[in-house]
């Protein structure tokens, strides 16, 4: 019951937040930009919480650090992109967004490589296959 109430309150709060953003900003572009930033910040908060709960030196903690860096650069890119539109930024400063998005993609590649390594380190499928063979052999012998 408590969990259901929590979900209901959280849903109402999110909907109220979205509604207030729509009412206050009015402009569709600003609304989408604000919502994207809100979700970006939420993603960063959750990742930071996860990073804090995991054991120091663990593989998953190191992966969350890469993922956090990706999120931060995606958010910076998003903020800069919106700033360009809102403040009519021109010249070389407008090209900074390309730098941010490139760094974000490079970090995504690093994070993907990290999760690939985690998969290789923690994956037991090959070993499990051997166990299956041993069990089948034992079954056949009986």
């Amino acid at each position, binding site marked *: 019951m408590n969990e259901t109430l929590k979900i209901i309150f959280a849903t109402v709060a999110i909907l109220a937040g979205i509604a207030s953003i729509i009412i206050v900003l009015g402009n569709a572009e600003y609304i989408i930009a604000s919502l994207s930033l809100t979700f970006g910040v939420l993603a960063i908060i959750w990742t930071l919480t996860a990073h804090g709960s995991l054991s120091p*030196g663990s*593989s*998953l*903690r190191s992966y969350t650090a890469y993922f956090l860096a990706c999120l931060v650069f995606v958010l910076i890119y998003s903020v800069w992109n919106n700033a360009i539109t809102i403040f009519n930024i021109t010249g070389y400063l407008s090209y900074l967004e390309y730098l941010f998005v490139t760094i974000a993609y490079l970090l995504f590649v690093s994070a993907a490589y990290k999760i690939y390594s985690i998969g290789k*380190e923690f994956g037991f499928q090959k*070993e499990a*296959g051997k*166990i299956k063979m*041993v*069990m089948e052999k034992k079954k056949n012998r009986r």
Partner: protein
Amino acid sequence: MVFKIKVEYKKKLSKLKEYVVLATVDAESYQEANLALVKHLTQGEKIPGVYVTLNKPCKTMAGLFKRSGIDTRMILFIDAVTKTAGGKLEKSDNCLYIGNPENLSDISIAMDQAVMALPSKEKFVFFDSLNTLLLFNSLSTVARFVHFLASKMRAWSVKGIIITLEKRAHKELIDELNQYCDLKIDF
């Protein structure tokens, strides 16, 4: 010792398909109890499983098991005692080296992956041992970890055994942990 364990098993656990047991042993019979329990699971019940060692290196345990006639091909080892180069994870044959007993996150992930990979409905998880975990982690961390481990063992539907040395200093903790487990067996 083997006979005693078998009687305990038959009496208390034979009817259960899945359970979480806190097994307390004294220092002298610790090794014997470990071997007898694993032998019972792999040979008596013929089920594969995961052996998490925080006490002795995986190679030493595998050697001991082989000498006791235990088929190590039925076991996936998770070794948190052997130091690896740079404290990084390494894998060889059927053993994953975590490199650090403080790294509870990696131990948990490794256990989850190993249990889920096992190709059998019935499987076991053997955690050796709780008192070693206490040497590297605080009491509250260990208590929280065991609570997590017990609930995970239930979710995995495995025969879970958490072994610990009977120590007066940890009596309160053992009593507290007892409530997370289905049964406490003293060997």
